[in-house]
């Protein structure tokens, strides 16, 4: 028991040390002496200030980092409303009835043990989380339509006290905003680092009074991640990697400072675009990708199709693919996201994906590990 505590504190300490060397610290301390700080180690998209009787959570606008996307003022339901509250969306915690717009967040709710509170979801056909499937079957939760355009009437009928959304830059949830239902805007997908994204579970937990649980889950994640990362520290040879495929005339390539770029670096790979400055992905022509990545040691492809993709199929799709070294040497690994729970698990457990990568690039470091998402591409 105590050991756990010590470990926990130790890990927090490591976090604090690490963040001093790589990421900007985002824990603002207010002038009031009673406030406790809430250190947010990895995520750059949200910050938390505690005050007497309430908590202020600010979500930064990831598309214009000088602006704020939303400020939430969280007041526990059983306490009285303090007389002076800062401006922001008032939320009485914990939320009792929520609607989740994406399957990723359904997964997080599951981890936080927030199950009965979920009364509605969007696009239920894409959600694979068991308790959601069950809930839909028994009618405990309903599908309110497309995430981009939910059925507002049904939403109002449900009378939730919060909706968890993933807003896109130029598609404000206009109609939903007008209903007055507080939107918990999770822009976790805009985080450029894996641990940063995973930390958003702590953000979500604040709304359900599950801070402690989230903190410990996150700490576990951080620990696991760092452990795997530590394995590759001694590695001398970093194999080169190229990712994904072209669609139409464009091949979307993740930038060097993007989520994927960071993950690959942590996995001990030399991503072909490691020195690129983009924090997201950008389109290139086949030629440009071939020039830089044609000789890469490994090629990782994610796709979502009914049939599995094989070497032959890849060549038939576009003959020049067969000229990649990785194709010729049979070093391609694929992940069919329709079959494995990639998008449900990876945001919250980037260490799983990191392990897969390390296993692929440096198999001797994880001899007993079996690949979870990727597998060797089959012949045809």
């Amino acid at each position, binding site marked *: 028991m105590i050991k756990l505590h010590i470990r926990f504190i130790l890990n927090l300490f490591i976090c604090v040390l690490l963040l001093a060397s790589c990421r900007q610290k985002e824990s603002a301390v207010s002038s009031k002496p009673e406030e406790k700080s809430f250190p947010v180690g990895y995520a750059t998209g949200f910050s938390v200030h505690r005050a007497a009787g309430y908590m202020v959570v600010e979500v930064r606008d990831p598309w214009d980092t000088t602006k704020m996307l939303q400020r939430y003022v969280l007041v526990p339901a059983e306490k009285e409303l303090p007389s002076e509250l800062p401006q922001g969306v008032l939320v009485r915690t914990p939320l009792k009835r929520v609607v989740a717009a994406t399957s990723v967040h359904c997964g997080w709710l599951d981890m936080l043990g927030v199950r009965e509170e979920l009364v509605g979801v969007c696009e239920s056909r*894409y959600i694979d989380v068991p308790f959601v499937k069950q809930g839909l079957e028994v009618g405990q939760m309903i599908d309110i339509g497309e995430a981009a355009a939910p059925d507002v009437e049904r939403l109002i009928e449900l009378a939730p006290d919060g909706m968890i959304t993933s807003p896109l830059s130029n598609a404000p949830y206009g109609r939903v905003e007008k209903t007055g239902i507080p939107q918990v805007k999770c822009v976790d997908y805009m985080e450029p680092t894996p641990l940063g994204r995973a930390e958003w579970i702590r953000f979500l937990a604040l709304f359900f009074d599950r801070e402690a649980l989230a903190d410990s889950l996150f700490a576990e994640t951080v620990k696991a991640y760092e452990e795997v990362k530590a394995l590759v520290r001694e590695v001398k040879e970093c194999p080169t990697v190229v990712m994904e495929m*072209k*669609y*139409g*005339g*464009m091949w979307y390539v993740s930038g060097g400072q993007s989520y994927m770029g960071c993950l690959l670096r942590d996995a001990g790979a030399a991503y072909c675009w490691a020195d690129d400055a983009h924090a997201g992905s*950008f*389109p*290139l*022509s*086949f*030629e*440009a990708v*071939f*020039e830089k990545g*044609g*000789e890469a040691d490994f090629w990782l492809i994610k*796709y*979502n*199709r*009914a*049939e599995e993709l094989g070497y032959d*199929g890849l060549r*038939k*799709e*576009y*003959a*020049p693919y067969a*000229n990649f070294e990785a194709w010729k040497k049979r070093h391609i690994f694929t992940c069919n996201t*329709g079959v494995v729970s990639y998008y449900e698990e990876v945001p919250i457990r980037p260490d799983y994906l990191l392990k897969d990568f390390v296993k692929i690039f440096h198999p001797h470091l994880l001899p007993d590990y079996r690949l979870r998402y990727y597998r060797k591409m089959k012949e045809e």
Partner: protein
Amino acid sequence: MKYRIWGGIVLLLVLLFAANLFLGSARIPFRAVLGILVGEEGEKTAWTYIVWQTRFPQAVTALFSGASLAVAGLMLQTVFANPLAGPSILGIDSGASLGVALVMLLCGGTVGAVTVGLTFSGYVAVVVGAFAGAALILGLIIFFSTLIRSNVMLLIIGMMMGYIASSAISLLNFFATAEGVFSYTMWGMGDFSGVSAGQLPFFCGILSVGLLLALLLMKPLNALLLGERYAGNLGINVRRVRVVLLISTGLLTAVTTAFCGPIAFIGLAVPHIARLLLGTSNHNFLLPVTMLCGAVIALLCNLISVLPGSAGVIPLNAITPVLGAPVIIYVIVNQRKIQYFH
């Protein structure tokens, strides 16, 4: 005078074709490309591969696609006596897209990856599907043209049919996965890189058939400038000409759309460019020049799309309207002064 124009266009064509081989997203030195073209082994095998396996097929695709779409547009404009007719406006390429989408759905796979798991007979299936879709819409347009006198109304009907075809495709996409939708969206942006070196003979072969049919129609098209009654009086079997035209236009539009996605504006604007350049509506000159101009414009657009180099790629359908729309606007505004409008 006319021969100077010919010479100029052919020269431009050769230059742009060469430019498409020498310039691209990857920076390959001029000397290296030259060496690769004459058969030397390049410094990097990647370069040899890029020049012969991606740039060359892309340039040839652009050349043939541009010529085909331009000629299809010219024929439609003459037959419907409508200077604003074109394969995209009349909804013909939407019909072709629908044909492709249906074939892809039936054969499994996603729309947009034309050759997913396809053998030679697979390509043929896709092209047949595209042709059927294009011919269907074209046939409907011809049918409506017998009922409706007004040119503008016919254009609007064409647009309506294009919308119907597009909505049918959207419905099909509804059943597709997110990736399928994404794939289709990307395909809709148009690109000339979809034809690999191995598919090139098939692609160029079929388009050549369509282009040849068009050349055979030069004389009837000239007669049709006078209207159907005069044309009939001059000995043209208007019905037969219509059928040949349907086959030719359908083929040209269907194959380019199936392999390159729907490309807007080339069919609409290039015939006008050719007419303004030549100063005549005489198809004996106009048709070949339209072909060449179409090829030139397509090669130019292809070049522009790779201009950003390692920073990215501009989708084709973002470039063609920028070149094509001003031409159309110019023609409409200067209607009075332009001879062939009367």
